[in-house]
């Protein structure tokens, strides 16, 4: 299946992991070199993922570790969804790493970069693995490194947020482990395809409890409504690069995990309706909480929460269209929110305050950053010609296509939430452009900070104008993501 060593998808995990371990060592030699390591790793990952993408669109690749055939060994399932996520992770990782060159200066720099790589490794591992326990391990790697990174600044807020995040997150992880225990107790295997194959043979309350445990456990990371209290704290207190990664990647990985488990293991059932409702509730609560925030990063964090709700809703519609829309929205949110956090990172860095009022008139003082921020915001609201419009459009389309009254009501609520979102975001735009600045002097933005943001902005506009770029990939991904039987078939080779 895999022709040469350099095309092996395992490298997507191995390379960053290896680099992560080398980072402190290299740090001992030369400290300045450390910050280029993540760039290297992510560049490699991005290239490899892009290279693999056309291949996996036709046939997902199965990689078995240690030479055993599934279900006896840990295997990777490198499907379109996995590669799509992997592209997103490496893209955002790369851009954030570039941003980090000049942004992360204080503190234990080599540890930052190590944890940063570990986080991305964990994320990539989760989306590629085909083994439930392996998924858990990668999940823990992701979580632990993000706990640590949230506290990176070691200020009061960062530590507090990290502590709270840690307690909630590890409780969630404990639930996942418990769920894995249940599944193993019932099926005696940890391979997802194997469990999926046998799941219909068992009818036990334990099965459902396991599902509930998974939803709750991953739900903490995915910021489902009552489980998301850590999110605004952590996202607003972390360094902005980390906020970008957390908002752009980590929470999506949580969502991926939930739905991978649900789609593949448990198949479609009534829980999706519940999840759709919960998704919309999350959306509403998130947007409403963001409405009156005065702290710019908290606004963005709450908005992420809302967007998570939207994505959960889309993925729970339970049709290929819905999943395609949900994946599209994930891309939208990844690009837009990373963009926003990176922009805000620089704004906060320059003005030294996270209050909305400190952004007064920044449009004049840092025009390019403000412009890109505006693009990100418009995209999140779902205005054409930015990427948010086609993604929201496809979600609504998918929802209404079902023809169910419940979904109609949910979509109306979702649109209401969009209105709220629009209002507070437009308010911020006004603050940026239409309030008098305190000072006149302009900020000079270093190129390394500007470059990633510009790339994200260009992507947002390009895909927004021509969403056909992604259409095929998304539809194919959605099909494979959704189809349990073909998953089993692919893993077991026919």
């Amino acid at each position, binding site marked *: 299946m895999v022709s040469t060593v350099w095309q092996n998808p395992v490298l997507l995990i191995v390379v960053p992991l290896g680099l992560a371990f080398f980072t402190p060592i290299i740090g001992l030699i030369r400290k300045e070199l450390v910050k280029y390591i993540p760039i290297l790793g992510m560049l490699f990952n991005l290239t490899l993922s892009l290279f693999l993408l056309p291949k996996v669109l036709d046939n997902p690749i199965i990689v078995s570790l240690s030479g055993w055939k599934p279900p006896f060994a840990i295997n990777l399932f490198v499907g379109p969804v996995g590669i799509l996520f992997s592209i997103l992770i490496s893209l955002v990782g790369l851009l954030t790493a570039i941003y980090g060159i000049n942004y992360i200066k204080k503190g234990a720099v080599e540890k930052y970069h190590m944890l940063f790589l570990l986080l991305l490794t964990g994320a990539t591992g989760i989306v590629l693995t085909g083994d439930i*326990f392996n998924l858990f*391990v990668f999940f*823990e790697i992701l979580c*632990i490194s993000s*706990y*640590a990174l949230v*506290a990176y600044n*070691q200020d*009061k*807020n960062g*530590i*507090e*947020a*990290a*502590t*709270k995040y*840690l*307690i909630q997150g*590890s*409780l969630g*992880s*404990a639930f996942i*482990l*418990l769920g*894995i*225990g249940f599944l*193993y*107790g019932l099926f*005696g295997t*940890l391979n997802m395809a194997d469990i999926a194959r046998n799941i219909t043979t068992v009818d036990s309350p334990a099965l459902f409890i396991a599902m509930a445990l998974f939803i709750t456990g991953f739900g903490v990371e995915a910021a489902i409504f009552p489980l998301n209290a850590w999110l*605004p*704290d952590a996202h*607003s*207190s972390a360094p902005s690069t980390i906020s970008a990664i957390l908002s752009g990647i980590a929470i999506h990985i949580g969502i991926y995990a939930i739905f991978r488990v649900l789609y593949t293991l448990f198949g479609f059932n009534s829980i999706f309706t519940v999840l759709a409702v919960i998704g919309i509730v999350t959306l509403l609560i998130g947007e409403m*909480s963001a409405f009156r925030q005065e702290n710019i990063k908290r606004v963005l964090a709450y908005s992420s929460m809302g967007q998570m709700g939207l994505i959960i809703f889309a993925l729970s519609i339970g049709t290929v269209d819905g999943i395609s829309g949900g994946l599209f929205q994930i891309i939208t949110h990844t690009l837009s929110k990373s963009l926003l956090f990176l922009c805000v990172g620089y704004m906060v860095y320059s003005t030294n305050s996270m209050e909305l009022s400190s952004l007064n008139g920044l449009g004049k003082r840092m025009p390019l950053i403000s412009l890109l921020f505006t693009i990100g915001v418009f995209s999140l609201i779902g205005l054409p010609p930015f990427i948010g419009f086609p993604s929201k459009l496809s979600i609504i389309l998918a929802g209404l296509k079902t023809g169910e009254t419940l979904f109609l009501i949910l979509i109306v609520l979702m649109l209401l939430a969009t209105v709220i979102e629009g209002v507070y975001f437009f308010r911020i735009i006004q603050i940026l452009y239409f309030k008098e600045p305190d000072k006149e002097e302009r900020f000079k933005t270093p190129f390394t900070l500007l470059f990633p943001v510009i790339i994200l902005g260009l992507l947002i506009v390009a895909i927004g104008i021509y969403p056909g770029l992604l259409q095929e990939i998304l539809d194919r991904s959605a099909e494979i993501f959704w189809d349990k039987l073909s998953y089993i078939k692919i893993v077991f080779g026919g």
Partner: protein
Amino acid sequence: MDFLYHNIHFIGAFGLMFIGLYMIAVKKNLIKKIIGLGFVETGINLFLIIIGYIKNGTAPIFSKAGLDPARMVDPVPQALVLTAIVINVAILALALGLAIRLYGHYKTLNVEKIRGLKW
């Protein structure tokens, strides 16, 4: 009584978990909460071990002669637990480290007072 006898290990495992959950949810002291986290993890580990356990089983070592494969305990949960313990250690260490830092900032471990971030 019979039920209790056959399921006592499950009860033990879940009991530990619930104690832990109680501590996390109710105790005001951050350290106690972290201890509670430890309890939960321990309970889960115990649970995993129990799943793979066979009464009067032997160690799952095929190379060693004289062991009946049918009576071997399942090795996979044990591997899982080993991994989980490692993870737990990491988490607890991080948690305690953070708790120390937090104490440095707030001069208290009462979580009701540590509410700098809210709303």
